[in-house]
């Protein structure tokens, strides 16, 4: 780990070579699981980013939808319109393939931003708790308890409600996604806080922190300039894992009716819609989104696993 951290900063010329040579990169190259998983992730992410270019249709533009295309099975022409769709269409006549690409986009966006938000909140609070200790620490950790008390679903619903209450009508529809992000982040920051606090408690007693204090550096420079970089690796691991969790959580929330708007479905919303057709024979509406989600979450999780071991110097 140390190697990579360092190479990322040192002389740009040798950087790549050095990174390639680092134990980190080496253990990556020698772990087929990690390689495959990251390939899958990369492909999916690219697919999401370039969805507008790849997707044959724009499922988010209602004007282009033809209801008569509804429920077209994969690869076979539609009874009325004779149109054919690679992965079939859903109840609105949306091309499932395109919808998955666009949905992937939303899911990833929600997942990544939620995790980032959670990470920022958690890391800051964790650091503060560890560094100052005393009643501040108690306060923060108790807030964490309160947080844990609320099921994520409830948090989401409440935030939805509040957002509806406070945002002016004309912005409500953009709101949904951001509410999701906040909701998931709020139910996720605690673990970051706990981990960071734990690690920081160890670091803050190391002599380099003393040295910094001796120079007269203030609390926050020490916290963020000195301690933070040294507690990042566990954070990185959690971030990966909870990215997968966030994407799943988004799906679950939409199952409970607080997900992305149906006109701009995320993977989760697609699955929620699709599960309604499980018994009715339109398996593809559920199957393909579910597989995509599985592939994404599974790969991310596997990467997280590998990272956990790779970043642990003791396991080298």
């Amino acid at each position, binding site marked *: 780990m140390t190697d990579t951290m360092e190479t990322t900063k040192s002389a740009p010329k040798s950087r790549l070579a050095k990174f390639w040579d680092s134990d980190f990169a080496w253990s990556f190259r020698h772990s087929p699981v990690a390689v495959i998983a990251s390939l899958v992730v990369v492909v999916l992410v690219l697919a999401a980013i370039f969805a507008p270019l790849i997707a044959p249709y724009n499922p988010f533009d209602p004007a282009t939808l033809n209801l008569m295309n509804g429920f077209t099975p994969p690869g076979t022409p539609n009874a009325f319109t004779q149109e054919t769709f690679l992965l079939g269409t859903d109840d609105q006549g949306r091309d499932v393939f395109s919808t998955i690409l666009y949905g992937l986009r939303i899911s990833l966006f929600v997942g990544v931003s939620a995790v980032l938000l959670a990470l920022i909140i958690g890391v800051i609070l964790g650091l503060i708790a560890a560094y100052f200790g005393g009643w501040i620490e108690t306060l923060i950790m108790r807030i964490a308890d309160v947080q844990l008390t609320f099921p994520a679903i409830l948090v989401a619903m409440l935030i939805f409600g509040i957002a509806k209450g406070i945002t002016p009508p004309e912005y409500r529809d953009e709101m949904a996604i951001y509410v999701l992000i906040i909701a998931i982040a709020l139910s996720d920051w605690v673990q970051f806080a706990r981990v960071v606090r734990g690690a920081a408690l160890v670091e803050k007693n190391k002599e380099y922190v003393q040295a910094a204090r001796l120079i007269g550096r203030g609390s926050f420079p020490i916290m963020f300039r000195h301690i933070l970089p040294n507690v990042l690796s566990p954070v990185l691991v959690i971030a990966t894992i909870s990215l997968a969790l966030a994407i799943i959580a988004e799906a679950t929330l939409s199952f409970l009716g607080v997900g992305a708007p*149906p006109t701009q479905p995320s993977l989760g919303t697609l699955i929620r819609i699709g599960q*309604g057709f499980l*018994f*009715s024979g339109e398996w593809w509406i559920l199957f393909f989104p579910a597989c995509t989600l599985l592939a994404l979450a599974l790969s991310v999780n596997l990467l997280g696993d590998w990272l956990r071991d790779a970043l642990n110097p003791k396991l080298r």
Partner: protein
Amino acid sequence: MILRNSAIGLTMLLVGTAQAAEFKWASTTDPQTMDPHAVNSAPVLGFLNNVYEGLVRRGKDMSVEPALAVSWEPIGDGEGWRFKLREGVTFHDGSSFDAQDVLFSYQRASGEAADTRSWFAPVSEVKVVDDYTVDFMTTTPNPLFPSSIANWMIMDQGWTEANDAVVPDKETGNYATINANGTGAFKVTEREPGLKTVLEPFGGWWGDAEHNITRAEFNPIQNPATAVAALLSGDVDMINPVPIQDVARLQQNGDVNVIQGIEARVIMLGFSHDAETLKYTDDAGKPNPFRDARVRKAVAQAVNVDAILATIMRGNAEPASQLVSPAMSGYSGANADRPAFDVEAAKALLAEAGYADGFSFGLKCPNDRYLNDEAVCQAVVGMLAQIGITAELDAMPVRNYWPELREDNYDMYLLGWSPGTFDAEHPVRFLVATPNEEKKLGSWNFGGFSNARVDELLPMIQSELDQAKRQAMLDEVAAIIQDEQVYVPMYVQPLVWGTRSNVELTQRPDNFFLLRWVTVN
């Protein structure tokens, strides 16, 4: 230790037993109370129709037929109605039924706390003539009164007073909330709100049973998929509703039947008529186009109802041209056809109204109220996009929906209406009449539509005894509503029930499920 049976428990026990006259059914919502006067909602009244009875009741074909009253006739020329009561009827607890119970039930059901009291708005006084005769005096002639009280259920005065449930209490509940004592064909033997309710045939019922049920159990199951699974796996004998999309599959399955009918409920699009400006999207603040009938017409013509019915409803529903379905009395045959689907005409109308290059607005929609409501709204959005007006769909659970509508937070909305009286007058009173608190008019006319002629006709319709004249007036109103395109009626919501193939039952348009018509073979 008491041993209790629940659905699964029973199926286990019953395997093999030939005479399977026990019956289990499931629906999405649990009747929230056993008190027939506390809540005026379909799930409650529907369920309680098995337990309680009114003076009159509706038959398999919705026709009004004698129940606790054997006969009734108008008093004079419309001062009121006289009901002759059935003799020798007893309540489940054995006490006997007479005029006092009727009077008591009237007072109870028309009281402040009762949710049913709007039924008795026209009633000025109730007189007990003798033990088995009761007079209902009405302020104005009221031809429909008998049918309007078909769901008014009679409670036993003695029982109710003894358990001090004289006043229905929906806030904190009382004895009558969990217990029931009716004259109906079934009595409640076990009640676990939200979990299950067990009914058993009432031996002392006055009527002759058409069913072969020895015990019936009701379980609410929210998740449609789970309900379907339960039916398929035989954990229940009947579910209501069957998710539209599963109809085809279930029909192919030999073990289950799908029973379809047309519900009384008409699904329609509503507009904001009185708002000066649009409230949503980038056009928020611009003048409200829906004030212009041409725009509303354009919408009506842009919506391809047939497509919706073919795909989302899978051919399980009928298009609607009016606020009531043809099955309802007072339906206007003269205005039977709905505006044709015609994108070009719609565009033309928009242009004429000065919206050639369209506009954008907010469409509100529930996502857990009507069959596939969300999907339908999405489809509508798509279709309106074809004529260049972009709707922003905001679908929400019904718990947030009604408040939104009440606070006028919409430009256009989705609404379903089933007339409690099964008469065309009902929706006019609630949806079209100019809102008026004390007259209790237009209480669901969110858009604030107002038309002097309609307001003038409504009382006349309500009091007209001559069917022909009455129908003429109804036709006029229907015509006005259509010309003005006050609402855009789309289709009549289908009723889709699923049963095990060995079950025979009768489905009524009001979506009431009556055990006394069930036979398990």
